[in-house]
């Protein structure tokens, strides 16, 4: 079946806001609930201008390192689904309320898997947002990156445990974007 031509991506365009973002999309846990943190940042273009028409989706493990495989992300009902969606605002900012994920196995660092969409971005991009911590220096993937590239994937944590990372679509400090092996078949 390798002769199947994969359906190519097309930009999400400028007019997705009334269709894709939804109430509760960015709140994987209710704001203010026990263990809730904010994961936030700004998306920038190659000229350093914020991108007000981007959208992020995140997928993550819970605080025990388990990846939930349960329905309920669109109509949240107190169940942690490990998935959320947030559009950037008028000044390019995104924000999620969630819990800090733990590593899913020994030897790798904890991270949020991220998909990024935007007007002017013809196909989705994948990246990761890592939590800061001593495990980072042992993570095989992070170790494979030069320092300045690795830095684009690691969030800063404030005293309240909130995480912050800006994403850059293009340029010197461009975020490390990812491809997975089966993407190469197409």
């Amino acid at each position, binding site marked *: 079946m390798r002769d199947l031509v994969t359906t190519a991506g*097309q930009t999400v365009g400028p007019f997705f*806001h009334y*269709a894709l973002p939804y109430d509760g999309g960015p709140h994987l846990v209710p704001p203010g609930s026990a263990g809730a943190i904010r994961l936030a940042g700004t998306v920038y273009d190659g000229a350093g201008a914020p991108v007000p028409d981007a959208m992020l989706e995140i*997928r993550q493990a819970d605080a025990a390192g388990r990846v939930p495989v349960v329905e309920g992300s*669109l109509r949240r009902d107190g169940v942690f*689904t490990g998935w959320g969606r947030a559009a950037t605002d008028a000044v390019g900012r995104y924000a999620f309320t969630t819990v800090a994920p733990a590593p899913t196995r020994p030897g790798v660092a904890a991270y949020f*898997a991220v998909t990024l969409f935007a007007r002017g971005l*013809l196909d989705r991009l994948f990246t990761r947002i890592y939590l800061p911590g001593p495990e980072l220096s042992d993570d095989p993937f992070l170790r494979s990156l030069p320092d300045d590239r690795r830095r684009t994937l690691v969030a800063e944590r404030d005293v309240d445990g909130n995480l912050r990372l800006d994403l850059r679509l293009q340029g010197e400090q461009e975020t490390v974007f990812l491809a997975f092996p*089966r993407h190469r078949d197409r």
Partner: protein
Amino acid sequence: MAMTATTPPLASQASISEEIERIQHETKPGQTSTRLDFSPYRSTLLRHPVKELRTLDPEEVELYAPVFGHSDVDPTEADLTLHPGGEPIGERMVVTGRVVDGDGRPVRRQLVELWQANAAGRYVHKRDDHPAPLDPHFHGAGRCLTDDDGWYRFTTIKPGPYPWRNHHNAWRPAHLHFSLFGREFTQRLVTQMYFPGDPLLALDPIYQAITEQAARDRLVAAYDHDTSQHEWATGYRWDVVLTGAHATPLEREDSDA
């Protein structure tokens, strides 16, 4: 029209078409994914990565797409013509097809989202200022779950083409925006479905950013007379092939248990 020094005049369709042809000619054959670096679509200029994507094996987080179910999606959300105030204006149509992964396996019970302009080419979006009428009976967004064999099905109206400011006299071919998930996070897809025989396809820098004809053809639905409904709606068939899965079906079944 006054132009500031930083705003170049809009390119003509002829020069955009020439640019499209040149880049397609320069792109090596066999690239069936969409180019991110595609200057005829002007908004890509500052929004495409210039460094190479890093290829790596997915970890567990990336091997599981989010799961959606009947608690997430109401069956009526698949009919975009339902409106308490009345029927939308336009050609009623049924769009249906099958979602499979790169190995031909159906993507079962997974979310499909659809959004689109109305029959006049206008979106219900505050930043759409195309001087075409809004339709008080058409919102233009829907969702559904695929069935046990990967089939999705929507009832809607055919959207109109609409102008945009990419270049002079630029028109988007009529299209439906689709958002799809696979079984893995790595299989995420947002794309657009087009209509057969549309003369605007050849002129469109978004569609033409897919440089391989066979891959472009994948985005064009087929009129399907068996899907058309007697005295009710025309029918279109559009199948979707996601990228391949990294985990084997056996591993999946274990994890489903």
